[in-house]
């Protein structure tokens, strides 16, 4: 029986046969704006140009029984789109993973849902899972009609549906017809979160999982290793010119006069100036580099000094920054009245914690190729975490419609959050240069520019007070977190050129919410507050640039978890308690207790109070250990760092780092382990080394010597304990959090080793050496 012409309701989705076809046949899964979202017609939700009748659906099942999946989330090195997403779709569809032969990610004209390359597993409910669940129900419906067997007697395995003594491959169900499943979505395509699939299709019971939980390889790894992958750095278009930018002398400089290209030395080079945006294009890359250097030497900028300098950063933040204009945010876990408890505490801890600016620091600087066509169509090739949002930003800059703009995504150097709101740095500049010269243009920043003109993870400080009762239990916890606005998604080229952009993140600022979920639920009185202010220097800069901040791996939560977890370790020491048992004694959450016990066992941690009185002198290494814990993206974490510190030099070596992680259902154990190891290494790097330094005019960290990151010789022995909890029913993410766990554990370990508390990061030797002499 062929499929009826009238639409069929599939748990709120619509299944329609579009046409009979002679050969082939396909099921296309697209979306429609249903329900309340209909009232949004006219805003960008309805304006998205992706028609589900075009090849832009989440899932396509083809007559040869192969399956193609598409997602707006571009891969950023964690590989989730090529591992977890294939596993999730295969599982929900009762197909084999080998059937999923193609993954399309991040191209705005080819993928359906937008949103950024973060939180891939969507706390257990990513779009792709729901899309697959709806699709499976539609396939059962099709099978019921084709096989004449009632749906409730049908089941499927490896892409073959069977029941009542009959069976048929998915591909054969579709032969001779083109069927479209339209599923309900809400949201805004070009926003940070993109479109979300709504409704509640039946999901496959976890106990029936066959594919989730296995360590499939990342399907893009082989092509990268074999030098077969096309990277963003490899994109070449016919007639393409190479470009280098001449960025202003300071982050508050305006252009006085642009230098001229020396045509004798650089015959093909061409200068482009628009406002304060200066770029040089040439036919070869080396000519563009040298011509840009020559032009830079001849270009004059106004002087500007409007920053406090990194040595005065926290004095500035405490005494000069305006924290009043931004509404204070409060944790939804706040309870009790902390003030009288703190006032009458038997023992009390009061401490302040300081975190520096840090850079996303991709190994390769930002790069993009833009092709602005005469009719106004714009094609941008880039490595970007949020291509749909970038599309919106470029449309705003150009005063055009997003329908004119296509973003294509390619692998590139991971930059851990920098572009999750839309731009990585070079895209808008490439567009402006391409528009100016009428040819495709490839813009690549040089290494110093990538440090000095990109955004950074915001500096922050926190004031924490903890009251202990006579038994050494926490009876009140108070934390005030202070952090400048975080999500500056303005494309810098548009800002410099004086073209339209979104607003700078003004007060009330973004990102000052309580980002670090409270874990210690038996503490009777809790007060956590988040304070925000404008970005440093933004108001004083004539071009409103300032120290632009952006979310970076574990954003905001890093800044709040370091003070909390270090303060909890200090409180444990004050109570004379073991730091892990102390944490366990302050929570009823079985998953918090579970990760703490697991990490304790894996590290061979013998319970004892932290050492507090040691002689921290001499050249003999002292050893210590520390612990930290976190809940992020539905995943529970605990980490133990074991360190050696040489008092004479202040040099810390992290010798062993043990991490326990409970994400609920583990989708892919080996990939998760690799992600956690990578995060752990980055975390040690953050803790020991990373600080973006700046003077009165801009960022002075400009290369890998002035912004060092961890080297292989300094990698600890890393042990990862994965805790699979199928009963939780969802899968949490694993690519964040590990980078934040290290710092409070290392600082607690330093305390354990020396009796001294480091209240700021990074723990570079000169700081630790000075600390140990106090």
């Amino acid at each position, binding site marked *: 029986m062929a499929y009826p012409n009238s639409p069929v309701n599939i748990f709120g989705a619509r299944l329609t046969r579009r046409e009979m076809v002679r050969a082939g046949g396909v099921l296309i899964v697209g979306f429609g704006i249903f329900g309340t979202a209909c009232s949004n017609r006219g805003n960008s939700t309805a304006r998205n140009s992706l028609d589900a009748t075009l090849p832009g659906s989440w899932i396509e099942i083809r007559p040869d029984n192969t399956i193609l999946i598409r997602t707006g989330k571009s891969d950023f*090195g964690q590989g989730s789109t090529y591992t977890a997403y294939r596993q999730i779709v295969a599982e929900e569809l009762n197909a084999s993973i080998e059937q999923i032969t193609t993954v399309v990610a991040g191209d705005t004209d080819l993928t359906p849902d937008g949103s950024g390359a973060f939180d891939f597993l969507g706390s257990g409910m990513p779009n792709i899972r729901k899309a697959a669940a709806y699709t499976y129900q539609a396939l059962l419906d099709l099978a019921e009609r084709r096989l004449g067997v009632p749906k409730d007697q049908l089941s499927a395995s490896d892409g073959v549906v069977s029941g009542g003594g009959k069976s048929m491959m998915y591909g054969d169900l579709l032969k001779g017809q083109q069927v479209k499943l339209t599923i309900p979505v809400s949201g805004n395509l070009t926003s940070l979160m993109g479109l979300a699939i709504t409704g509640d299709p039946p999901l496959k019971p976890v106990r029936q999982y066959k594919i989730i939980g296995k360590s499939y*390889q990342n399907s893009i790894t082989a092509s990268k*290793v074999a*030098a077969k992958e096309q990277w963003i750095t490899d994109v070449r278009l016919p007639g393409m010119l190479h470009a280098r930018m001449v960025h202003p002398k300071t982050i508050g400089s305006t252009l006085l006069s642009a230098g001229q290209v020396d045509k004798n030395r650089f015959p093909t080079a061409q200068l482009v100036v628009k406002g304060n945006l200066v770029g040089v294009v040439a036919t070869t890359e080396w000519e563009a580099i040298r011509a840009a250097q020559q032009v830079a030497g001849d270009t004059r900028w106004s002087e500007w000094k409007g920053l406090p300098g990194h040595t005065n950063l926290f004095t500035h933040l405490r005494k000069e920054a305006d924290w009043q204009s931004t509404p204070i945010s409060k944790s939804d876990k706040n309870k009790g009245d902390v003030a009288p408890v703190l006032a009458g505490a038997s023992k009390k801890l009061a401490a302040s914690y300081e975190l520096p600016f840090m850079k996303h620091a991709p190994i*390769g600087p930002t790069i993009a190729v833009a092709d602005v066509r005469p009719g106004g169509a714009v094609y941008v090739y880039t490595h970007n975490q949020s291509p749909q949002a970038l599309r919106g930003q470029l449309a705003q800059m150009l005063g055009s419609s997003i329908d004119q703009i296509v973003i294509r995504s390619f692998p590139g*150097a991971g930059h851990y959050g920098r572009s999750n709101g839309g731009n990585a740095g070079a895209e808008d500049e490439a567009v402006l240069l391409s528009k100016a010269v009428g040819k495709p243009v490839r813009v690549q920043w040089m*290494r110093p520019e990538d440090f000095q003109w990109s955004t950074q993870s915001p500096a922050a400080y926190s004031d924490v007070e903890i009251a202990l009762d006579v038994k050494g239990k926490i009876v009140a916890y108070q934390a005030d977190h202070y952090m400048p606005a975080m999500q500056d998604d303005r494309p810098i080229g548009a800002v410099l050129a004086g073209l339209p952009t979104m607003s700078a993140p003004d007060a009330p600022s973004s990102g000052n919410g309580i980002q670090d979920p409270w874990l210690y639920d038996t503490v009777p009185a809790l007060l956590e507050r988040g304070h925000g202010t404008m970005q440093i220097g933004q108001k004083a800069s004539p071009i409103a640039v300032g120290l632009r901040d952006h979310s970076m791996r574990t954003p905001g939560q890093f800044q709040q978890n370091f003070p909390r977890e270090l303060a909890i370790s200090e409180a444990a020491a004050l109570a004379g308690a073991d730091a892990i048992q102390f944490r366990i004694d302050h929570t009823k959450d079985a998953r918090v207790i579970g990760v703490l016990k697991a990490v304790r066992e894996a590290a061979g941690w013998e319970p004892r109070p932290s050492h507090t009185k040691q002689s921290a002198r001499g050249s003999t290494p002292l050893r210590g250990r520390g612990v930290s814990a976190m809940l992020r993206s539905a995943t529970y974490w605990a980490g133990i760092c074991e360190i050696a510190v040489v008092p004479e030099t202040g040099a810390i070596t992290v010798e062993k780092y043990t991490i326990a992680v409970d994400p609920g259902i583990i989708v892919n154990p080996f*990939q998760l382990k690799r992600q956690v190891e990578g995060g752990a*290494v980055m975390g040690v790097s953050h803790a020991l080394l990373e600080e973006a330094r700046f003077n009165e005019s801009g960022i002075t960290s400009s290369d890998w010597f002035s912004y060092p990151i961890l080297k292989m010789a300094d*990698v600890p022995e890393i042990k990862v304990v994965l805790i699979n909890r199928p009963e939780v029913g969802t899968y949490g993410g694993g690519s964040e959090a590990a980078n934040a766990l290290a710092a409070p554990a290392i600082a607690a370990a330093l305390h354990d080793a020396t009796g001294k508390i480091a209240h700021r990061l990074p723990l570079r030797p000169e700081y630790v050496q000075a600390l140990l002499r106090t």
Partner: protein
Amino acid sequence: MPTITVNGARRDVQTPPDTPLLYVLRNDLEISSPQFGCGMAQCGSCSVLLDGKEIRSCITPLSAIGDKEVTTLEGLPARWAKQQRAPASVTALHPIQEAWIVEQTPLCGFCQSGMMIKATELLEQVASPTVADIKAAFTTSGPSAHLCRCGSYTAIIEAVQRAAKLMGKGR
């Protein structure tokens, strides 16, 4: 017209002699595995072998190559086949590449071409390196440490150890 030998083939290049080898490889010869990371020999993303020794192509001018042979990631399978006196195969990879895949070493992977080049240099000199040997090779043996932002160092160490075993079997 200067001619250089890259991955076993003589290649003519019409590029000014001061051009860094990186741009010659990527833009003129379409050999794209070495990546631009810093342009200052600080990170190792652009590493290639020059007569078996790792160099940084971002600071090495074309004029410095002379008669020496350049090997990039693309050339590793043929290099291994030649060392084994085996016929070059279009599908076979160098054991280092095989190990990199089995160990699922890359995260973003941008630095990994340089990492595999460094691994090749090491394993051609030291058949069974210790972890300390591996750490030293990737940290202090070259113009700078090889940097990975994603923190894949642990996976690299495991991949080098696996590659050493695979190469041992090959010999």
